[in-house]
């Protein structure tokens, strides 16, 4: 069984598992990192959205064998540590301020996708628009979408 080395939330991890097991299951079932959620397993619902080297990706669609030792995987559990200070990430604060979550199941993925959207929009030197928000594919079956939009706008001002 091959050994895989990569970084998760700032720590180097070594995992013995077959190459083709998707990273979502390595995180959840082997490493016990359960912030990223299963919602479809085919990169559609985006509930598992996390970051690789600072950019959004969906670990349900990445064989663990594709990871390199220097790859830094950030899950919702590690998001707050990507910013200065002891507090939460500004997007997490915005989420609490707008009381966004209902059941909360999709929220780790929503927040990770939101942080990435704001990064990309800022790189283009723009402010978040409705058209940008419309590109988010993360399902929220509770339907808290309007609060997600509000929170992303608030959070983007503090990022």
């Amino acid at each position, binding site marked *: 069984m091959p050994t895989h080395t990569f970084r998760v939330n700032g720590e180097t991890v070594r995992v013995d598992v077959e190459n083709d097991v998707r990273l979502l299951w390595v995180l959840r079932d082997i490493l*016990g990192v359960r912030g990223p959620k299963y919602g479809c397993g085919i990169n559609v619902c985006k509930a598992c959205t996390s970051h690789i080297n600072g950019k959004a990706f969906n670990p349900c*669609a990445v064989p663990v064998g594709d990871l390199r030792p220097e790859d830094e995987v950030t899950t919702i559990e590690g998001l707050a540590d990507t910013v200065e200070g002891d507090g939460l990430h500004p997007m997490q604060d915005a989420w609490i301020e707008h009381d966004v979550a209902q059941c909360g199941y999709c929220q780790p993925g929503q927040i990770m996708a939101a942080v990435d959207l704001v990064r990309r929009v800022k790189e283009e030197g723009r402010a978040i628009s409705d058209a940008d928000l419309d590109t988010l594919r993360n399902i929220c079956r509770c339907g808290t979408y309007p609060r997600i939009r509000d929170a992303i706008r608030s959070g983007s001002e503090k990022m």
Partner: protein
Amino acid sequence: MTVDYSALGQRKVGRRRLLGYLVAAPTLAVAVRLASDANVPGHALTIPTPGLPADVFDLSDSQNYAAKPTAHLIWMEIREDGTVHFALPRTEVGQGIVTSTAMIIADELDVPLQDVHVTLADSRPELVMNQLTGGSNTTMSTYYPIRTAAAIARGALLEAAGLMLGGLTPTALHTDNGAVVAPDGRRIPYGDLAKDAAVDQTTEVEADLKPATDLKLVGTTVGRTDARAAVTGAKQFAMDIEVPNALPTMVCKPPTIKGTVRSVRNQAAVLEMPGVTHVAIIPTGVAVRARTFGQCIDAVRALDVDWAPGEIGSDSDEDVLARIRKAEIPMAVPEVPLLAKTVDTDFTFAFASNAPLDPDCAVADVRTGSAEIWASLKVPIVAQQELAEALGFPMDKVTVHVVQGGGSFGRRLFTDAAMDAALASQAMGAPVRLMWHRADACRQGRVHPMSTSRVRATVLGNDVLTYEQRHTSGRTDFGHGFGDIITASAAKLPVGDYSISQFIYLLTTGAHYNFGATTSLLDELTDRKLNTGAMRNIYSPNVAVARELTVDKIARTIGKDPYQFRRGHIRNDRLRTVLDRVAEAGRWGRSMPRHHGQGLGIHSEYHGHSACLVEIDASPATVNRDVRKAVTGPRVTKVVFAVDVGLVINRSGLKAQMMGGIMDAIAIVLTSSLHLKDGNFLEASWDNYAYTRQWNVPFDIEIHLVDSGIEEPGGAGEFGVPAAAAAVANAYWAATGNMPTHFPVNHSAPLHYEPYPYNPPVPPSPTSGLDHVK
């Protein structure tokens, strides 16, 4: 003729004095009956005319009433660290009842909100029908019992403090922020009193609840108590719970609905696959247990199974619709004057999926002679009964832990995934963490049945003389105990000999308008070929869409403005008030561009009233906008929603529930349905079943909470859907010029996806994840 709602709607009460118990325990413990007399309206048994049954005795009353004779006690305890603990015998699935319950306790007990710890009670069979989360009933049925417990605790703390302070009477003291305060300002924290306030012998006591004017937290805006856990990934759902050796397990489901396993042809080969530990046949398929869920998916795809078919054969949507048409009962309009006009409408509603995002799942550890189950179950007692029976154990050998769910929408009323988990664990002799694949949730999970709704109204001049609605539906499975609650009170109802489904229909369907002789009836098919269940708000969204479109049609027939026509015929003042609110705030009748339109809808249920105004953009540029693998179509651009639920506990939580209901409404009217084709549902993913996504979300949403001075809480969890769905349908009509008759409006359009194969039953896990990094 108007039914007097005042008896039901207002229920004004003065200061309440209620009974409970101080329970023998090491620290202060209090118990109350879950259903207090306060929940049962005394007027419930009188028969009004000419309203429908739901106008005087609705589903909520039925649940409250059923709870009364069987209610047992619920406990609240205060520990030496000053924290308050309460195990709520209800299930949190996102609707916010843990937060609202904590608010109610904190307010009555004068304790900081963060010191109140609300957990979910395990299954408690002694509560009989009083541990069911449904019908938007939680707050209505628990508000006074929980306040009573808190008030008794507060009284005991005052008494203990009086003794500690050398014999002061409790009336000389007051409570504030987790402490008893003496006349000289000394503060004794509750934690310091928790032992002294405890009793050796359980005693019955009376408690005075605070007058409504003294409530400071109830009725304010409070964020969810688990908000931080939700945004940091710390919140645990069933699949996140650590149970030793409970390895990932999935079920290879049949390629047909309700198919069964004849044999497995390659069990040995699958057992050799990486990570796989067990393969076992269970009644719903072939269960595989492995080190990771990814390896379960691979094993499910590799299994070669000889399947026996289910009962649905090669039926498609058209076949089910034909059976429903055959079951439709004729209209029976009373005699009306010759000059009266008849308005007929006829609507069809497609199958819909109630699947939440958190999949059907459960953890099960079945040993020799006993079992422990963890799952989000809204009727845990029925689950415990069914699991015990299936496992062959006495009921008390099965422990059911209720876990917070990631949504429910009707799905978690049933025990399907917990049953798979328990039987797999038993067959394998090992603990399992069992989850359905999304494809199974769509194709093998319960569906909200197809239905038709027909209305005939007769109109003379500006008056509606008769209104007759006939709803005909596929069978809705209420076999989760909800029906038992209804039948428990059935003998008390002013209605005749009806089935459980018909009772529920009658109890949720009121007469909203003064339309003369008014009837609304349900007929359901009886076959069990499909796995069915209710979806959020059961019949009401479809019934309301049909009713409110017909109201617009009547208004158009007699040349009246739909808003003015509604407000002239509405039976209830509170309902008229919320309608007026949305018409004013939403600027009803404002000039709209071509292909845009406004629509209205109203709905009363759960002791409350709601109205909605929707604006929609059906211009070609919007309808044809391109989003990859998605349904676009007309876009709701603005929603103004007003609701009067009586007493509001948490303004933020209530608005959240209305918001979610509005998103459901947009989905069921415009975008989301299941297609039955040749004996199977086509949809197998979130990109197939087009629930509302960000590109369908209105840009502007206003939710108005209307205060009518009612001191009693109503229901909220499902209440956002019907008025909003009706308003979306009417706005669509206004924008397109065509009254929609088939829902969702895109159901007959060409599919926006290529259906996944049925065998293997789940799609492969993709490998291209890193290619999409931007």
